[in-house]
């Protein structure tokens, strides 16, 4: 371990990849120092980043492998633990075939770890390997994939500072990606016009010049409405549409039906505001679209993303500095986990499963006789299949399904139904409680590897500390597991795995450990050793076979579940600044809990009045799936008839439904029908 003090590191929370230093004392992390020279956060950190030491040094950290016995958890040796895991995997494989196995990778683990993880799954003969991108940005992969040719952020975050118009739809970056606000405010200082479309009035809406409060689930209508205005007012970038895209005529055809008055009726936004937004976006010299889970987590997630791409394409706002489409991803390595092929339908580098050429390439690289040919089950489908008894053994690396998947009760039933469940994590999360075997993993500061941020920036993380107790880096655990499974892996460390990755993933062709350690990493595509990275995508051509982008018309569809007489409220979910995702980390930080202690529900004061609900009352929320308790918070941030729950606490996803987007298979977390009563 190289001794540096303070040791530079990367924040393990969201996808921005903010840098800071860990101050070390006697082998312990004793403080953080800000890193003003980092290109993303310029030193600043959000409250989660600021409290990260509380996670690192937490007494709840898992320290030893644990086996579930009739009398409770029993501490066992690593050797026994890995023998057991390997035996169970092999047992299922022999008895029920490879598709009785499933693997959930982790957007919190490094590229190398996810690469090895999916390689193990595929060499065992199954494509049932996925990661939590399925729950947040699977629709970005499908939507941007079919329009632009690649499902990733087109421009770096710092580019926002030179946008003349920033159109934010379904993203509350002020709370969830705070360092992004820095750039948006910089742009505003230079006179940029900021539009925020969100059903709620969020801190992001506070900085908007125009705030559009749409009915949840009507994003396609709004986007089509804006495009209708742009087409009918002649604001289309004709040259760009002609030279660089295909399909304008079909799109124009569909857009005819989305005049501002019709769209206003669907979305609840006054037509004048739709027109104003369309003009501001189209007329700006450079305009960027920022979106996040408000767009992706719908049954129309792929369509929503596609409509965002269509809008950028017809205005020519793509392929240059200050423009582009910026999907803000959720986890520190969710981009990387996808790039590495921890996805049921993609090999590393997005070669499609089922395409013989892509399979052939991997087969040759891995020296494998045969790879499974049909796409595997997605994360959400794995849970369904486990419930039906089709999946026998599930291996989960760093994820809490119970709190992050929709319909928690059904997830719990599915986990109980498994023959064997392995959970590898840093904490005993609610999913690990259902496991037969729990393996203690190292946290971000205790291991090495590369991580890919939302802006495609690949950074190298160096170990600063030793893991607690007998906890081990995920990569080390996987190496030893592979050995027990009889797989012959030649690598000794993450650097060597990255060498294979650069051969497997074309965009990582020139990425190597030594290069990443300098200058805050490289932004992919970086195809060869002399290449310095590609901050802006699609400058000359798109990543489609013919280099042209596709304009794909999409239609508005109502959400799967709408409020009715039995369940009169529309429940939407999201995040708050003080907590993070399923909460297994942030709910262990006292400084954060002090400021946000428990599950609350936002309700409009008018609704509260009619139901005689006061601030702080305990409420019971019920949906068709289950019920949960939350404290009432009266606020005009939500519209009448809408309730908002943060999803960082157990209980929220007891209520949500598992209706899926057809293409991306992402669940519709953003809309469910719900009722409330005083508890």
């Amino acid at each position, binding site marked *: 371990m190289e001794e540096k003090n303070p040791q530079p590191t990367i924040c393990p929370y969201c996808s921005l990849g903010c840098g800071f230093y860990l101050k070390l004392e006697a082998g312990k992390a004793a403080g953080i120092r800000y890193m003003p020279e980092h290109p993303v956060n310029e030193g600043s950190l959000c*409250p989660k980043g600021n409290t990260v030491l509380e996670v690192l040094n937490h007494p709840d950290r898992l320290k030893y492998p644990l086996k579930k016995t009739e009398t409770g958890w029993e501490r066992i040796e690593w050797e026994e633990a890995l023998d057991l895991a390997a035996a169970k995997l092999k047992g299922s494989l022999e008895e029920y075939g490879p598709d009785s196995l499933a693997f959930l990778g982790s957007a919190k683990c490094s590229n190398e770890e996810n690469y090895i993880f999916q390689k193990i799954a595929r060499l065992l003969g199954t494509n049932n390997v996925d990661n939590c991108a399925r729950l947040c940005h699977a629709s970005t992969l499908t939507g941007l994939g079919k329009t632009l040719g690649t499902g990733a952020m087109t421009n770096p975050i710092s580019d926002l500072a030179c946008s003349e118009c920033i159109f934010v739809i379904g993203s509350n970056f002020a709370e969830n990606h705070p360092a992004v606000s820095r750039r948006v405010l910089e742009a505003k200082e230079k006179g940029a016009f900021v539009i925020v479309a969100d059903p709620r009035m969020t801190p992001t809406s506070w900085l908007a010049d125009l705030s559009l409060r749409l009915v949840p689930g009507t994003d396609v209508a709004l986007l089509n409405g804006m495009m209708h205005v742009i087409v009918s007012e002649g604001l289309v970038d004709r040259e760009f549409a002609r030279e660089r895209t295909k399909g304008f005529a079909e799109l124009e055809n569909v857009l005819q039906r989305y005049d501002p008055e019709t769209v206003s009726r669907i979305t609840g936004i006054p037509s004048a505001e739709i027109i104003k937004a369309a003009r501001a976006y189209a007329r700006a010299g450079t305009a960027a679209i920022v979106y996040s889970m408000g767009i992706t987590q719908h049954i129309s997630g792929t369509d929503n993303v596609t409509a965002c791409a269509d809008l950028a394409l017809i205005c020519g706002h793509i392929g240059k500095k200050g423009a582009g489409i910026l999907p803000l991803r959720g986890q520190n390595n969710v981009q990387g986990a996808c790039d590495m092929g921890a996805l049921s339908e993609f090999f590393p580098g997005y070669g499609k499963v089922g395409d013989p050429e892509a399979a052939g390439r991997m087969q040759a690289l891995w020296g494998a006789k045969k790879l499974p040919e049909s796409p595997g089950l997605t994360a959400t489908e794995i849970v369904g299949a486990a419930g039906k008894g089709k999946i026998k053994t599930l291996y989960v690396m760093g994820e809490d399904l119970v709190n992050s998947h929709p319909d928690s009760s059904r997830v719990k039933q599915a986990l109980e139904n498994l023959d064997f469940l392995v959970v590898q994590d840093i904490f005993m999360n609610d999913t690990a409680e259902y496991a037969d075997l729990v393996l203690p993993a190292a946290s971000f500061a205790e291991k090495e590897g590369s991580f890919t941020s939302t802006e495609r920036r690949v950074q190298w993380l160096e170990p600063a500390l030793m893991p607690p107790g007998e906890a081990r880096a995920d990569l080390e655990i996987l190496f030893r597991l592979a050995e027990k499974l009889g797989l012959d892996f030649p690598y000794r460390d993450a650097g060597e795995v990255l060498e294979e990755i650069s051969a497997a993933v074309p965009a990582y062709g020139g990425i190597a450990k030594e290069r990443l350690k300098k200058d805050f990493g490289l932004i992919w595509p970086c195809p060869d050793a002399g290449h310095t990275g590609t901050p802006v995508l699609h400058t000359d051509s798109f990543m489609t076979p013919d280099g042209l982008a596709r304009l794909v018309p999409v239609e508005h569809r109502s959400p799967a579940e709408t409020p009715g007489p039995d369940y009169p409220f529309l429940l939407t979910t999201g995040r708050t600044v003080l907590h993070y995702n399923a909460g297994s980390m942030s709910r262990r930080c006292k400084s954060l809990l002090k400021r946000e202690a428990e599950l609350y529900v936002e309700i409009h004061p008018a609704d509260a009045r009619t139901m005689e609900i006061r601030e702080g009352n305990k409420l019971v929320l019920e949906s068709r799936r289950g019920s949960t308790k939350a404290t009432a918070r009266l606020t005009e941030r939500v519209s009448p008839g809408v309730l908002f729950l943060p999803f960082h606490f157990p209980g929220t996803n007891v209520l949500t439904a598992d209706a899926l987007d057809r293409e991306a298979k992402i669940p519709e977390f953003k809309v469910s029908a719900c009722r409330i009563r005083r508890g």
Partner: protein
Amino acid sequence: MKEVMVRPERCMGCRSCEIACAVEHSESKDLFAAVMEKPTPQKRIYVEYVPEYNAAIPMTCRHCEEAPCTTVCPTKALKQDEITRVVTHNSDLCIGCWTCSMVCNYGVIGRQKEARVAVKCNLCPNRDIPACVEACPTNALVFIEVKKLAGVKRTEAALKLARGMQGKAL
């Protein structure tokens, strides 16, 4: 003389400054130890949420000239440095009478949890830039001379005016 200046229109209410402040003013300066520490490390900056106006405003000591807290303090626990004009608090001299808190126009003099002594911003004497400023993700807090911030704001206002004159305002 640089001061902590607040640009309230930029605050998103994330409270990162509060956490950074509490850690900086802990014995250990280590966040993990800090949460366990007694006396409890205390913040000296307060993010106030104003729901009626959809705004969050960080409130911190303005280190006023002829600061009322210093002029009323009966034990001289609160003092204004003659050169830097920073208002500091000496807890050894503090008798917990709260006169300072009563006269402060900004309500930024708090109380130590375990002891009857006042707690207020001391501009982080051990740092080049106060912790709250360095942590702020949106630059709502800046450590800058008044003259300079006024200059920055003038430039921004002039830019907006110039844009308006050319009919470019949206």
